């Protein structure tokens, strides 16, 4: 079971408020009925009022909760969609912020990413490649091409001097990478993100879901160690913060891992052994699996189930109030 929009659950904080309003309404209602009816029939009227208030409130609260759950987009089970694609398009999105110069992986995070990309390009003959560089902004360096010479020279060029915007924005990176795929191509599509995961802005879950819906796989590679390393500057010096301490950058794989999961890809750590064969293998498996089956599995969205019950609860709420139940009971 997966939740497409977990942020919708934040709406549940309103449940206690709704209950509070209903309880206050009930207590004020008791006083009002006492005033109107007098003490003669008070106990019967009050019982009726209690029962109606209780079930009415319960059904309304249930309506609200069910609607929020429906909004969260729960899905379980799998269904298949036909997908006649063959061949592979890969767009590399490379973080070129200064922290990628840290040398906690050898020779440096960026150089390691370059080596990994070369390994992929070498292993996947016949694939087309594109390159997007990003920091706080993202730019398309190389459009999707088969041209090995152009790919090679572009990979040698990727470095922090390309973009001067500070920060790391995975959302823009992912959007730019997704836009790199032509819409009329019949090939499988995969994005590979190289970053230390120290994202400062942007919410990448939107484009990640879009990618998932369009069948674009997202593979993420964390480059860097949790222990981290000092951030050098372009001129060979070291970066210092406002207090004069050297800037230390640690890899944060969590967001990258989540992004890959959303779009049915893998997350890899650039420091783990065998990564140079695992990344190309993962990509060719992504291509091969779908090729042989001719379809792709997607989770089944179950919002209608919850929405349906929410509507039933709302009708129950209305009927509890509007029907004179005492005629039958």
């Amino acid at each position, binding site marked *: 079971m997966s939740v497409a929009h977990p942020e919708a659950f934040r709406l549940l904080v309103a449940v206690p408020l709704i209950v509070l309003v209903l309880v206050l309404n009930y207590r004020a209602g008791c006083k009002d009925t006492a005033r109107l009816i007098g003490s003669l029939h008070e106990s019967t009227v009050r019982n009726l009022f209690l029962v109606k208030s209780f079930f009415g409130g319960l059904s309304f609260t249930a309506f609200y909760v069910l609607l929020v759950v429906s909004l969260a987009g729960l899905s379980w089970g799998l269904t298949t969609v036909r997908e006649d694609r063959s061949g592979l398009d890969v767009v590399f999105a490379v973080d070129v912020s200064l922290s990628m110069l840290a040398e906690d992986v050898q020779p440096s995070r960026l150089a390691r990413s370059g080596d990994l990309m070369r390994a992929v390009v070498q292993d996947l003959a016949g694939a087309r490649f594109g390159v997007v560089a990003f920091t706080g902004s993202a730019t398309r360096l190389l459009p999707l091409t088969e041209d090995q*010479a152009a790919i090679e020279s572009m990979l040698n060029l990727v470095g922090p001097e390309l973009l001067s915007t500070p920060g790391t924005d995975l959302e823009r990176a992912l959007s730019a990478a997704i836009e790199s795929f032509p819409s009329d191509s019949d090939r499988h599509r995969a994005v590979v993100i190289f970053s230390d995961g120290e994202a400062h802005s942007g919410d990448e879950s939107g484009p990640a879901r879009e990618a998932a819906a369009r069948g674009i796989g997202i593979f993420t590679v964390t480059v860097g160690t949790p222990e981290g390393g000092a951030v050098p500057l372009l001129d060979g010096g070291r970066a210092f913060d406002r207090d004069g301490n050297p800037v230390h950058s640690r890899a944060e794989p969590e967001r990258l891992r989540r992004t890959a999961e959303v779009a049915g890809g893998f997350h890899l750590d650039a420091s783990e052994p065998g990564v140079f064969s695992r990344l190309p293998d993962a990509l060719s498996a992504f291509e091969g699996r779908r090729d042989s089956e001719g379809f792709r599995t997607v989770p089944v969205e179950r*919002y209608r189930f919850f929405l349906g019950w929410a509507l039933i609860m709302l009708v129950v709420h209305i009927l509890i109030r509007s029907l004179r139940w005492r005629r039958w009971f």
Partner: protein
Amino acid sequence: MWVLEQPVALLLLALVPLVIYLRHGAPNRGGRLRFPISVWGGKHFVPRVWSVAFLYRLSILAFWLGVVICIVALASPARVYRERINLTRGMDIVFVLDESPTMAAMDFEPYNRFEAAKRIIRRFVRGRENDAIGIVSFARDAALRVPPTVDHEHLLEELDRLSVMELGDGTAIGLGIALGALHLQSSSAEQRVLILLTDGKNNVSEILPGVAAGVARDLGVRIHTVGIGSQGEIPIEFTDPQTGRTYRGTVSDSYEADALRDLANVTGGNFFEAASLGSLEAVFQTLDTVETVERRARVEVRTESLYRHFIVLGLILIMFDFVVRRMLLRERL
């Protein structure tokens, strides 16, 4: 286009009037206490504050509108996109574009040769959706501007950025062809084509055009050559991108028709001459018809579900009603 994926759910709308009747119209409906408030034969009780009555009606309207919207959401509203998916591999085309200073000659009214070439290439690219197209430009030196790609949006952006004399003064036709051929080397397309546009003679001898054409032929690349420019003294004006200085004068230099024809013949391509904007257009129309590959495509339907927008709107409307009646108007049940 908008569709409902589960239109059956809309049948629930038929039940809405019934529930509205039970809630607002049925005699003897519950949830209210009836008591006499007017004296016999006197006037009825009317709420005096019009805004309260207005708010009450508004909240009722919002509530039922919210219910209807939720029912529509249950019918799975979605937007449908139709995308054409190409099933065949198009050809690879690389333009080898002269950007020597003489390309700024003004004999392609109202543009100079270079701008005219850019415009015509742009139009050509628009009509070749399925083909990977790249650009190499040359003057004294040659550079890959765009590798062969089907990402035509990117290609056209880069094409716009080109200007004369960024690669120095000179006409290295051989270098341009060699570089173009190099970038077609790893192409998997069956048809690979170079289109050379130049207005001068080769005057850089690092790689001779004939040798480069031989390399291209061995790689299976066809070269079409287009000689640009008219005879005679042509006014010229350009700005050196390095110094920012503007030069004016006239040129009478021209391309060598025989040399260009040979280049084309060696590789199985054609030689064209374009002395005006109209003739350049005609050349590209010919190229467009000469270079064709079979093309098959299928239409893929992609749906984007919109139910969340409907649920959000429904939720807002119904909660508005809740707040108004339960909190502002202090309704008790």
